[in-house]
């Protein structure tokens, strides 16, 4: 019968210097790996939201020319507004630097501020947001994906973050091992995707999506209803958006830019509901008031553009063919406003 010998805990002597070296080398490897992960994820993240923010800023930072149109806003604009159509209609260059709703209007303001300082003012700005972005206060994880060191060192406006919030955001940005762990976990577990680019963006920032997702549209609409009934209830513009709108107004007036604010496209079934209509009425009132306060700002409304489920991937995001219709409609309305 084989005999079992139990393993023991045999301690071994260690010099203080060796122990300190082990800990230091451990931390160095850890930090090194963290920064490799950080730079790697900047190029190959599997998180579409982070990809959009990072690539749009890259576009903003690399572009070195005056442009006719700068399109800012959230992801509904990112995949809803075709820059080619704007260029064909109005001439000059158009750049779509829309990111995500959780970045709030503040990133629109930061991008505009940065663009003006670097390239001079664009002639026109189109801002596209989904109705539920206006009450949002933002999301720290999404804010942290912006080039914060640049934003804080240049004091991009508005400056709304306290020192502790800035520290927190910098941690979230640079401690990739912890804060982007899901993307890393996927990559480590499936290393054959290591250098695969997961998403594609056109040269001027438009990110069209090809396939509709009716199931997801219906699910998303239900989510919107729940939100409207339980969470949003009465419209109130968030402080960060209020402050950002004021900064944007100041920037457009100082630089004589025309700013057009557009509502995002929306699913027909959501638009027609009483809950949405009641809530949206207050947004229209707020934005109309904002636009009326300056001769440089225009509100593209009347009516909001609605789309069937079959042309959408969720309640406010279009597939490419619908994005072309949406863009064409926006162009028509801008032309009417200009007349």
């Amino acid at each position: 019968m084989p005999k079992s010998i139990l393993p023991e805990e045999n301690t071994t002597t260690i010099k203080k210097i060796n122990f300190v070296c082990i800990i230091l080398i451990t931390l160095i490897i850890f930090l090194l790996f963290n920064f490799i992960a950080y730079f790697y994820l900047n190029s190959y993240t599997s998180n579409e939201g982070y990809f959009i923010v990072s690539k749009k800023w890259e576009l903003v930072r690399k572009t070195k020319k005056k442009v006719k149109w700068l399109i800012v806003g959230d992801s509904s604009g990112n995949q809803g507004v075709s820059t080619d159509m704007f260029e064909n209609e109005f001439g000059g260059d158009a750049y779509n630097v829309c990111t995500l709703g959780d970045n709030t209007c503040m990133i629109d303001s930061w991008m505009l501020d940065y663009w003006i300082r670097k390239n001079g003012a664009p002639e026109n700005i189109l801002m596209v947001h989904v109705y539920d972005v206006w009450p949002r206060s933002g999301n720290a994880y999404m804010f942290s994906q912006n080039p914060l060191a640049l934003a804080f060192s240049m004091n991009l406006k508005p400056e709304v973050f306290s020192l502790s919030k800035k520290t927190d955001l910098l941690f979230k940005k640079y401690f990739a091992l912890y804060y982007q762990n899901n993307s890393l976990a996927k990559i480590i577990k499936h290393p054959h995707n290591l250098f695969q680019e997961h998403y594609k963006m056109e040269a001027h920032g438009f990110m069209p999506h090809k396939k509709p997702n009716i199931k997801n549209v219906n699910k998303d609409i239900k989510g919107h209803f729940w939100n409207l009934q339980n969470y949003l209830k009465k419209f109130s513009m968030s402080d960060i958006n209020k402050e950002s709108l004021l900064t944007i107004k100041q920037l457009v007036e100082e630089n004589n830019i025309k700013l057009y604010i557009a509502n995002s496209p929306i699913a027909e079934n959501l638009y027609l509901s009483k809950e949405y209509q009641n809530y949206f009425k207050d947004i229209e009132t707020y934005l109309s008031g904002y636009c009326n306060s300056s001769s440089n700002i225009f509100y593209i409304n009347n009516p909001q553009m609605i789309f069937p489920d079959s042309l959408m991937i969720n309640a406010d995001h279009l597939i490419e063919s619908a994005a072309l219709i949406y863009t064409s409609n926006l162009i028509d309305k801008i032309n009417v406003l200009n007349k």
Partner: protein
Amino acid sequence: MLFNSFTFVIFFLITYSLYLVFRKNLKLQNILILISSYIFYGFWDWRFLFLIALSTIIDFSIGQRLENTNDRKKRKQLLSVSIIANLSILGFFKYFNFFTHSFTQLLHIFGFNPDPITLNIILPVGISFYTFQTMSYTIDVYRKKLKATDKLLNFAVFVSFFPQLVAGPIERAINLLPQVAKKRVINKEMISAGVFLILWGFFKKVVIADNTAVITNSIFNNYSSFHDIDLLIGVLAFTFQIYGDFSGYSDIARGISKLMGFELMVNFRLPYFAINPSDFWNRWHISLSSWLRDYLYFPLGGNRNGMYKTYRNLFLTMLLGGLWHGAAWTFVIWGIYHGIILISYRLVEHKNLKSYSQNSRTSSAIMILIMFILTIFGWLIFRAESAEQIWYFISNFSFNFTSKSSDLLYSLLFFITPLVIVQIFQHIKKDLLVILKMPDYLIAFFYAFLLIWITVYGTRESTEFIYFQF
């Protein structure tokens, strides 16, 4: 408060800093440990602190009285009071609903329909651990193996020492009390081993246990949609989950204790390398199995009164060991199962295996494999929520792959491979701290690997350690 939470990290940093500041004053250090331990426990539910305090006072005063009398009858009475008091608390909080429910069901079988008596009792975390710990003190004092302490502070620290309060190891007074009573020395070797144990323990918990738990739960919670080899993958995932979870906690507890200058007993010695059931219980939850051996199996007579009584004692010990784990019939069946395989091995050993080739590596490997298969079957009983579920797993199992198998298997192997490699290394060298004998740069790479994996794969929302519920 969970070890795998930021609250604990902050709590420990504050406690440890103060602990080092008070290093020249033993009493202050012990007061600090006591307060910290009560805060640690109170974070979960402060109302149950009174139970710990009650156990502490009862056993401290009984210990004192035992120390002061040689009257056999009186000593027996005192011991009985301690055991009854401790088991009553444990019985009420842990087993009341189970027994009343089972009794009511039994009456139903005989045609009676009484109203079931159920109370909304919350199970105090770690009650099974500290109850057994305090009982061991009184029993050892009664047996005159240990001198009763006359310092309530020291005894209270022994009962509530926060690193091992809620999930063990179940320390013996004979080991821990003297360490509480005398000035602790923290040397480099203890710190080095402590750091290793903490990192390795966290890795086992948040990387292995919490991630294999995802596989386990997806299969066990929805078992009817799985079949063939997927069922085995589910059981294997639980096999590693429960080991990672429980031994991870023990490692962290022991590592933290080492940083504070305490040596707690080793609770796991590579249990999945056991060659037979008694070897398994020398390696798995050693603090409980040795407790059951010393305070239950031996008093029942051990193996001194012939074969039949030895088997009876083994069976009863395992049955109660199963029940210790929880108030459910599956735990009882699990205990019975382990009792049966222990007895079966003894029977086979007596009859046939004497001639089996000695110390052959192949035969060792075969025996490890057989014991591992028996162990994972035991975990199926342990994890299942009903006899029906156990039967489903048995009757629908085959080695055929399904469309889900490769993903499940890949996930399982991805998380357990580092553990398996390290443990093979530990097993070959018969040294649990073999990692610390590697060159410094390799240790640093190993630590960095653990830290990176803990950071990337560690579950964000703290999950409780499985053994908290026992």
